[in-house]
């Protein structure tokens, strides 16, 4: 469905000193600098796959997605999506894809989502009856009801994102590009969006390429992961392999009723921090359940919390350790 071969993008940015003199100098002699955002990336994605696109901030995820949907032209390399070359942006191609951006919205701010949906139906040439049926189905899946008839500015962030998804999927695209669709949502809303994407993929067999900051998005949805760092592709494969590599340990935070000695925690993972009643442990994934059970058994636990370290930290750690 998606074939990418040697894809690169070099942004040419103007270098301009601040101030009037700088502007004039820039006008006379343009000085530019090249920023390599994506470098020699190749991969294939088969129809119906759900692929996670991971990388730190500025790694080149958004740039790659934009090249895949034809918004920007590659500096080098070949892209084919659904049998088309995206940068030509033919109507035929645009009808088969969609792009959802977590930090931008297409719905009209002052109007209910329904109005924007009707506009989209006309733009994509979907007959009204068909459009209405799809809206009903999708709204069902997304658990949207009267929200669709309330002005967008009066919706919560989570409701707005769900409506955005509806607007982006109305024309039943076969390829979904999602750029941080869960950005800024609370945990519940994140879970809802995730669950919806999984359902949508199962029902329609659509191909999904998803970037996210939250490891949980990727773990929940994508059996296969692409990891990009400084514009280069570093990993392409099953999530488990990467997860073990990236986060072989999980962090357990404890709040105890009474202080403990460090010795007492020996053998229960690596001790990160011990301050009176507050304890932080790093526990290997495979021992997690056992360790937690022991902890609860042995100590007067007031609160216990297991987290994945943030993705930025993991990837940063990975590169510091020189493992890729």
């Amino acid at each position, binding site marked *: 469905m998606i074939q990418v071969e040697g894809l690169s993008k070099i*942004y*040419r940015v103007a270098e301009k000193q601040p101030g009037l003199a700088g502007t004039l100098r820039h006008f006379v002699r343009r000085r530019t600098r090249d920023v390599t955002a994506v470098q020699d990336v190749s991969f294939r994605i088969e129809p119906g796959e759900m692929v996670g696109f991971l990388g730190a901030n500025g790694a080149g995820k958004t740039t790659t997605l*934009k090249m895949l*949907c*034809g*918004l*920007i*032209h590659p500096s080098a390399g070949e892209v084919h999506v659904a049998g088309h070359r995206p*940068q030509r*942006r033919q*109507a*035929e191609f*645009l*009808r088969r*894809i*969609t*792009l959802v*951006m977590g930090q*931008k*919205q*297409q719905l*009209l701010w*002052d*109007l209910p989502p329904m*109005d*924007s949906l*009707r*506009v989209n*139906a*006309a*733009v*994509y*040439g979907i007959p009204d009856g068909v459009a209405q049926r799809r809206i009903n189905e999708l709204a069902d899946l997304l658990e949207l009801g009267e929200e669709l008839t309330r*002005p967008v500015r009066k919706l919560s962030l989570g409701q707005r994102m769900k409506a955005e998804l509806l607007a982006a999927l109305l024309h039943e695209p076969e390829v979904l590009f999602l750029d941080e669709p869960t950005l800024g949502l609370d945990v519940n809303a994140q879970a809802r969006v995730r669950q919806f994407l999984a359902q949508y993929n199962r029902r329609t067999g659509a191909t999904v390429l998803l970037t996210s900051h939250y490891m949980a998005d990727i773990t929940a949805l994508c059996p296969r992961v692409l990891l990009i760092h400084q514009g280069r592709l570093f990993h392409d494969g099953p999530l488990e392999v990467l997860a073990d590599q990236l986060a072989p340990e999980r962090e357990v935070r404890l709040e105890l009723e009474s202080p403990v000695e460090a010795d007492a925690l020996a053998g229960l993972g690596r001790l990160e921090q011990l301050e009176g009643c507050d304890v932080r442990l790093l526990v290997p994934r495979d021992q997690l359940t056992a360790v937690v059970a022991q902890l609860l058994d042995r100590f007067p636990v007031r609160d216990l919390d297991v987290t994945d370290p943030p993705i930025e930290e993991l990837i940063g750690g990975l590169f510091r350790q020189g493992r890729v």
Partner: protein
Amino acid sequence: MGRYWRTLRRFWGTAVAVQLEYQANVLIELLAVAMSLSGSLFLLSLFYGPDQTLGGWSWAQALMVQGLYTVFDGMATTWLRPNLGAIVTHVREGTLDFVLLKPIDSQFWLSLRTLSPAGLPEIGLGLGLLAWGSHQAGVVLTLSSLLTVLVMLLAGGLILYSLWFLIAATSIWFVKTWNATEVLRALLASGRYPLNAYPPALRLLFTLVLPVAFLTTVPAQVLLGEAAAPMLLAGLGLAVLFFAAARAFWLFALRFYTSASS
């Protein structure tokens, strides 16, 4: 084609719905239009005393020009400002991406996406003033002169749109173009008066460089039976030329956007 037509109806349907959200604005707009038009007429009257003309144009004839100007001003309020003004916002907030991903012409979308009914009364008043002025000036309407005026109005609208769109399209490079539009508006104000009221150098400027003459003076001359065929053809030719330029410039700007922008 049918898809574009259906899309247009949806566009304007939602636009009207947005306006209804803000009813008070409509009243304010009406008041502003009424005040503005009385001010313009007052100002125009200052040029006229007994036996006085403005560049050889009688009071009634000058009213026709004023009426045409009001029509175009209303057109700017109804159509150009809300649509072309939004291009800057699209570029700044990155929502132009959504427009470019729609299977529909992006210039069509950006130029006709919305409509502000608040400017419609102004168009009505302008047409009224034009009719009244024509009547006073003793214009005999014939089917052919009416048709020609209609064509000239369309050509004028196209010229105005193209100029405005050209400026708005530069927002792909310079994000703030609002002030450039203000310069255009200030210069267009020269269309309030017949071309002959200006010194020769300015007449040339307003005919060839910034063709304001074709918006107001020439259509009025058509009604008065004074415009010659070459003038009409020139107006049409310019309209086509300006529109082609706007279209070409947009395609160029898009190429730039897609090869560089974020």
